[in-house]
């Protein structure tokens, strides 16, 4: 019950006009980037990092929370109305959502998505409030070996799951690790790969890396796609705005099932909400096929409700894992971790003690942000879709200006601008050739941590490597990792064999 008291204090902190304004700004911004295809909350937070530097941390973080959840509220709008999901997290929900829109039930689909995102987000936030302190307490017994195991788990899991091919995921991971090596080694004081430039002694600024990979890389990719035909036909949002009792009866179990599927995925580093949203979609589809009056294929409300709830539930518990363990489980969480570091805070068990005010204010802001977002999205989703009419070239020019400006404002170094361009080109090449970006971010953020913990563990054990697998927690983590990756490899090999078998007779 201590949690409730703390949460109450958190509400008191944020229910001031100024902080409410930050929630609103974050929610508006998050929804906007969610609606716009190609932009996501990770990019939005990365672009905001330099600008929010002069804000107080509470204001900045509640705005980031608004952006984070807003992105997940907004992403379904474009998916439902145009069949171009604003984000990969909305693909699953858009399948049935767009069919609902085609059959004249766009408004209901949008309402189902917004309410689903709301339910998933609220329920997972409640869980985080009650369990994150325990998780943090559990994490205090973690030693170097456990943290190394967590980092390795995050590395491999995210590389294996996010990308179509594990090879490309691991290649991206290695690129990120290489970037993270630049700078003076904290333990020995040796300068590594700085080329003698004093500007690089602190390593490559995380703002430079995130802005380059997520913002500039995307802008260049858009330039490369210029001239391709893009279907920007927005469907009119017709139908009732409110769900009938029958529709709610159909959607309610799907919302709850979606939440249940999404919650555990926040703690497992598989790169965010793509996997749980598709799992939720698959579950609803299978359950729907048992019913005689199943609307799957013609716009089933459950097919929207499940994935949308799962997506936001994952985002909620991902924040819990980030706060309590310091473990980023998605690209967005990695960027948020960078934000914490910028304010001199290290998420993890100690954060609940050292910055308890901030943590509880942040958790309280989840609930406020969720309510604000529901109000912004439920009735106004069709209005948000109008954002898609903003000419692309002006939008991306603005992003470029903002990206370059933000990078320069944080450091006032021209070298950082050169680096951001180089990393932007890297981000473009990765997008172009199908390498996922998330492993790079996770590697850059957790790479130094993994190295430090490894060397610390080895120093304590005087060079005995068995210390790395000496505790039950590490053994379980490595075991789960090996089993998971093996299972995934077998499943993919099977899918490939089935695909070739299916293609064989046809050819």
């Amino acid at each position: 019950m201590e949690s409730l008291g703390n949460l109450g204090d958190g509400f008191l902190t944020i229910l001031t006009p100024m902080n409410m304004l930050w929630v609103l700004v974050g929610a508006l911004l998050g929804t906007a980037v969610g609606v716009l295809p190609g932009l996501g909350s990770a990019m939005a937070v990365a672009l905001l990092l330099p600008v929010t530097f002069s804000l107080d941390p509470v204001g900045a973080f509640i705005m980031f929370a608004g952006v984070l959840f807003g992105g997940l509220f907004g992403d379904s709008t474009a998916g439902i109305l145009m069949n171009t999901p604003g984000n990969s997290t909305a693909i699953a929900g858009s399948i049935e959502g767009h069919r609902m829109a085609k059959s004249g039930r766009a408004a209901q689909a949008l309402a189902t998505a917004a309410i689903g995102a709301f339910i998933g987000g609220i329920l997972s936030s409640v869980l985080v409030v009650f369990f994150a302190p325990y998780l943090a307490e559990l994490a205090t017994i973690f030693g170097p070996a456990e943290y190394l195991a967590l980092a390795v788990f995050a590395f491999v899991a995210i590389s294996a799951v996010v990308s179509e091919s594990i090879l490309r995921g691991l290649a991206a991971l290695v690129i990120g690790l290489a970037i993270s090596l630049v700078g003076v080694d904290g333990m020995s004081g040796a300068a590594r790969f700085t080329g003698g430039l004093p500007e690089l002694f602190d390593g490559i600024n995380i703002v430079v890396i995130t802005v380059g990979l997520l913002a500039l890389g995307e802008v260049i990719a858009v330039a490369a796609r210029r001239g391709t035909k893009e279907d920007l036909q927005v469907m009119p949002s017709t139908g009732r705005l409110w769900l009938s009792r029958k529709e709610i009866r159909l959607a309610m179990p799907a919302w709850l099932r979606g939440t249940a599927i999404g919650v555990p995925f926040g703690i497992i580093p598989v790169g965010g909400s793509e996997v749980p949203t598709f799992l939720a979609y698959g579950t609803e589809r299978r359950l729907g096929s048992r019913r005689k009056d199943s609307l799957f294929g013609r716009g089933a409300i459950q097919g929207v409700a499940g994935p949308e709830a799962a997506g936001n539930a994952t985002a909620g518990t991902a924040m819990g894992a980030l706060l309590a363990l310091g473990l980023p489980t998605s690209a967005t969480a990695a960027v948020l971790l960078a934000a914490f570091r910028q304010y001199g805070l290290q998420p993890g068990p100690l954060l609940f003690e050292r910055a308890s005010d901030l943590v509880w204010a942040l958790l309280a802001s989840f609930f406020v942000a969720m309510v604000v977002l529901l109000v912004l999205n439920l009735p106004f989703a069709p209005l948000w879709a109008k954002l898609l009419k903003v000419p692309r070239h002006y939008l991306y020019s603005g992003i470029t200006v903002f990206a370059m400006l933000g990078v320069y404002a944080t450091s006032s170094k021209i070298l950082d601008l050169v680096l951001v361009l180089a990393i932007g080109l890297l981000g473009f090449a990765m997008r172009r050739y199908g390498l996922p970006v998330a492993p790079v971010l996770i590697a850059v953020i957790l790479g130094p941590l993994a190295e430090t913990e490894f060397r610390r563990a080895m120093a304590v054990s005087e060079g005995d490597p068995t210390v790395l697998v000496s505790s039950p927690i590490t053994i379980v983590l490595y075991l789960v990792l090996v089993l998971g990756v093996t299972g995934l490899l077998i499943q993919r090999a099977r899918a490939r064999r089935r695909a070739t078998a299916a293609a064989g007779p046809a050819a």
Partner: protein
Amino acid sequence: MTRASAPDTGPAAYLSRRTGLIVPLLLLVTGVVLGVGTLTMDVPANVTSPGPQLFPTVIGAGCVVFAVLLGVDVLRRPEPEQIAAPADGLAGTGTAPFTAAAAPAVPVGDAETATSPSATANPDPDPDADDASTEDATETRVRSNRWAVTGLVGTIVAFIALLEPLGWLLSGTMLFWGVARSLGSRRPVFDLFLSLTVSSLVQLAFSAGLGLSLPPGVLAGVF
């Protein structure tokens, strides 16, 4: 660099579907840089084992291994010669594969005429723009607009060079205008006013609102 020297006969067509080799090449270079850097590193004398050289060695080796594996993968499974449908909104997420729906067999001569002008008319004015512009020299123009990328990257390079001498207001205006232009805007005069507005608003917001300073450049006295 491999592609720039390729003649527009067989190898050009062969490589143009395998521009993805740039990624393993990059990995390989990274691996070599890490290796050289590790060997030449100044390590303080009193370092406890494992020292600062272990991780760079492991990661450098990883770079080389994945460069080889990825290189083999790219060579064995090239991109389809043409993609049927343009990449939709999903392509921006980075996870969507390039959907190779029903690649029609393009006559070889066709592919050559498509690549040859790009090989000759590729002046590469800027070393920074190099890897971006050459890797787009594929005949599947649907998804790679070399000129847009070159224009965009060139604009950013110019911005970086001009920021401190010219100041934010002018170079920021140039950046917005140039990016909008390379992304396909067709209203240069209107864009000029828009860019100036955006740049001024940013300057105002930053110096008045957030108290961060931007380089004034040649307009130092005016503000």
